[in-house]
């Protein structure tokens, strides 16, 4: 068992496709809230395997896409401080800020380094005791424990030249906000790797309060097709529930150790989401105990005036209201090589996934 090939069996996928066609009688719109799913769905051509009654829409689950432009602007402002090294995941580097990007600043000589893990950033802090290292912490519950672990390790090692600029966010609030806003969806393909950490219970309120189903899905085509089958079945039989399709990696209780680390370091706070605005208790800030590792408390910077791009409809795409092809700039002024909006930058962004894999 390699946990990949087994889930790409073509006959099984086609058979599931036939079964979905068979049970689906009513129109249903299902939203995937994880950027990894957006990418997998496009890559494996899942929409082509579904009947006309079943429509998939992307949601707010690409961390780079929902991150505010002012976050980028502030990271750029940090990069201009003396003796500073900015460390970041590669995804963020080309995201446009108001007038620049981390990539452009790097080309101009700013000390900005791409890392694969927060652990690499800690190593840089260790090797450069005379420099201050800021790690750009973005991502949801899957990624946030890594930043927490980094801070805890830095504390233990006495690496006080290390800090995190947190834009970490949590998934349930935007999922609730979308339904509250009346976005037309009947079920959620639940985020698999977020749920590896959080467990499945954080979604219990969705069927309970809103009557919508959530099926936590894996990332292979068979996983996705099976999850869609389960959601269509829930919808047709009017029995919304939280179900785990991805049981090989998701336990109902989640990863307790990782959750404890989140609790130890972070504090819930209101946060801004592209398309949705400010949502209560949807972000993770660093708590008082670890204030000396909080870049926002360590450095004062002046940030340029926010300038949003006109014409980019990323916000409504993240809400499942528009599709990338509805954007006038898509594939013309906005391409992965020259992205106008964040949704075209990250591999997990709906516009980038659509551009890369769409056979239209």
């Amino acid at each position, binding site marked *: *068992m*390699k*946990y*990949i090939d*087994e*889930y790409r069996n073509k006959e*099984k996928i086609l*058979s*599931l496709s036939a*079964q979905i066609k*068979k*049970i689906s009688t009513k129109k249903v719109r299902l939203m995937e809230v*994880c*950027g*990894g799913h957006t990418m997998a769905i496009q890559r494996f051509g899942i929409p082509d395997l579904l009947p006309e009654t079943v429509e998939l829409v992307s949601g707010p689950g*690409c*961390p*780079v896409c929902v991150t505010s432009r002012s976050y980028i602007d502030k990271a750029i402002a940090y990069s201009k401080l003396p003796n500073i090294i900015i460390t970041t*995941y*590669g*995804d963020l580097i080309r995201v446009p800020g108001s007038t620049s990007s981390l990539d452009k600043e790097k080309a101009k000589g700013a000390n900005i380094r791409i890392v*694969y*893990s*927060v*652990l*690499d950033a800690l190593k840089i802090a260790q090797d450069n005791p005379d420099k201050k290292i800021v790690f750009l912490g*973005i*991502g*949801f519950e*899957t*990624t946030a*424990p*890594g930043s927490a*672990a980094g801070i805890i390790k830095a504390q233990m090692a006495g690496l006080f030249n290390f800090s995190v600029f947190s834009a970490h966010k949590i998934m349930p609030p935007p999922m609730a906000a979308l339904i509250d806003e009346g976005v037309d969806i009947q079920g959620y393909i639940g985020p698999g*790797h977020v749920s*590896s*950490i959080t467990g499945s219970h954080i979604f219990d309120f969705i069927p309970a309060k809103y009557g919508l189903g959530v099926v936590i899905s894996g990332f292979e085509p*068979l*996983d996705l097709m*099976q999850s869609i089958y389960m959601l269509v079945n829930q919808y047709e039989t009017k029995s919304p529930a939280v179900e785990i*399709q991805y*049981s*090989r*990696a*998701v*336990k109902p209780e989640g*990863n307790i*150790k*990782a959750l404890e*680390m989140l609790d130890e370091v972070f504090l819930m706070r209101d946060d801004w989401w592209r398309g949705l605005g400010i949502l209560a208790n949807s972000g993770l800030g660093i708590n008082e105990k670890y204030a000396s590792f909080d870049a926002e408390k360590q450095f004062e910077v002046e940030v340029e005036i926010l300038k949003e791009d006109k014409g980019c409809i990323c916000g409504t795409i993240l809400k499942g209201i528009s599709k990338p092809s509805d954007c006038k700039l898509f594939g013309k002024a906005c391409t992965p090589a020259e992205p106008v909006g964040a949704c075209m930058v*990250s591999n*997990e962004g709906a516009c980038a996934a659509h551009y890369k894999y769409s056979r239209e």
Partner: protein
Amino acid sequence: MCLSVPAKIESIENDMAVCSVGGATYRASLLMLDMNELAIGDYVLLHTGFAIQKISKEDAEETLKLFDEFEDFNEILDEEERISGRRIV
């Protein structure tokens, strides 16, 4: 960045493991898992340098088996529908 991949543990030293994905090897921190439950040859989900969850072989097999059962079940239903000429699901 959000990508997490199933990776096989090749060796363990303190709280770090060397894991393989396809042909490539990566170092992974095991800080978020219970070390007592990990052995060489196990698969873990690798995310930004951390093993975030052990992949359960039993559950993986169960998912695939469930699928087979459900395929069989659908064939039975198909057959019943053919015989009765009536839509069941």
